[in-house]
């Protein structure tokens, strides 16, 4: 799912989109994006964003955003009421009754850092939708 072309296109999109630039202009964090069996390290340093494919143990991160390949594929397609936004896909299960909508994504790690950077993270994830590659 994570091709070199996708990483290149995603990196370019987040560093040029004006909404992402505004949302991330002071953002400083490292996040592990788990996409099925693959992973990406998302690094933001004062608004400069980079994506590192298959990070090693030498790359620490503050929080992880994890989902199955199927969950990310659902997110990538046109939004539906249960796949509308990263936040809902990570939180709707907490409100589900029996057989309700699941949590497609899991958020783990330094929650203070995660929630402080939630708008920046979501703006970056939003660019994943419609990406070629």
């Amino acid at each position, binding site marked *: 799912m994570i091709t070199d072309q996708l990483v290149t296109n995603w990196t370019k999109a987040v560093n040029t989109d004006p909404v992402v630039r505004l949302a991330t202009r002071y953002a400083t964090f490292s996040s592990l994006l788990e996409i099925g069996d693959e992973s990406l390290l998302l690094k933001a340093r004062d608004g400069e964003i980079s994506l590192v494919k298959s990070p090693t143990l030498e790359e620490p991160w503050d929080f992880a955003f994890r989902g199955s390949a199927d969950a990310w594929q659902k997110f990538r397609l*046109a*939004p*539906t*009421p*249960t796949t*509308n*936004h*990263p*936040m*809902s896909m990570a*939180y*709707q299960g*907490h*409100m*589900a*009754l*029996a*057989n*309700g*909508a699941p949590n497609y994504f899991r958020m783990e790690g330094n*929650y*203070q850092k995660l*929630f*402080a950077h*939630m*708008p920046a*993270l*979501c703006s970056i994830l939003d660019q994943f939708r419609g990406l070629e590659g």
Partner: protein
Amino acid sequence: MNIEPITGRYIHVAVDGRNYRTYFEENGQGEPLVCLHTAGADSIEFRHLLTDAEITERYRVIAFDMPWHGRSLPPDGWWEEEYRLTREFYVKFIVAFSRALGLDKPILMGCSMGGYVMFDVARQHPDDFGAFISLQGRDYEPAWDGLSKWYRHPEVNANAMVQSLIASLIPATAAPARRHEIEWIYMRCAPGVLPGDFHYAAVDHDSRSYGPELSRIADRLYLIAGDWDWSCFAEHTDRIRQSINGITVVRSPDLGHFPMSEDPVAFRRALDPVLAKIAERGKAGNAARQ
């Protein structure tokens, strides 16, 4: 000149010996329709309804800011206490506001926590209001409180953090201007107010046992719910429908958590049949009395 017909004023509302200088906006004439905003927001959420000529030619639409919200300042002494909205105060305040304005059995309509409290007001004061319209209402939802710590944390900018939560509750089909309007309304919320409201919505509100009582007035209870709101899916409103025999439930495929703000046209499609039903019931009641 392009001046909107909304009038904004302040009314002093007394609850438990405390005075609350309360901001409200209104427009229109006819049967009063009192609107309650969502948690962490204020009456500006109803600006589209307040300027909807088709509505305001038949209804006196009134929307007020709860204390601590919008232009309603907290009462003196607020700096000595943590803001936590309770069911007792919320219900008392709504009734006190209606009485302070001298309203006679207005229709009461509220969204999110304003929709939750509809069940509490209807149970405690069934005869003070002509009808109750709950938007995105729930009987019980403790999960709202799960993020409250981070809205108060000194190293988290709550005004920025809230944007993601709000965005996730809005339909993908909403116009960008409407979507960002709602996000903006929330991003200017005062510190601690949203988690303080969550105390009511998540901790103090539990109407799951109200079914037998509310079933007796179910012909005056209405629930409108949008499919894009992950806090109010069909499974949630089904439980209310099963508990309150006879409640009218309207589900909309076009709405999310903020129906009156995110898509005013789709909101009217859901609201109009409800208002028509209330009007029809009023006519039948008048005929019976004659």
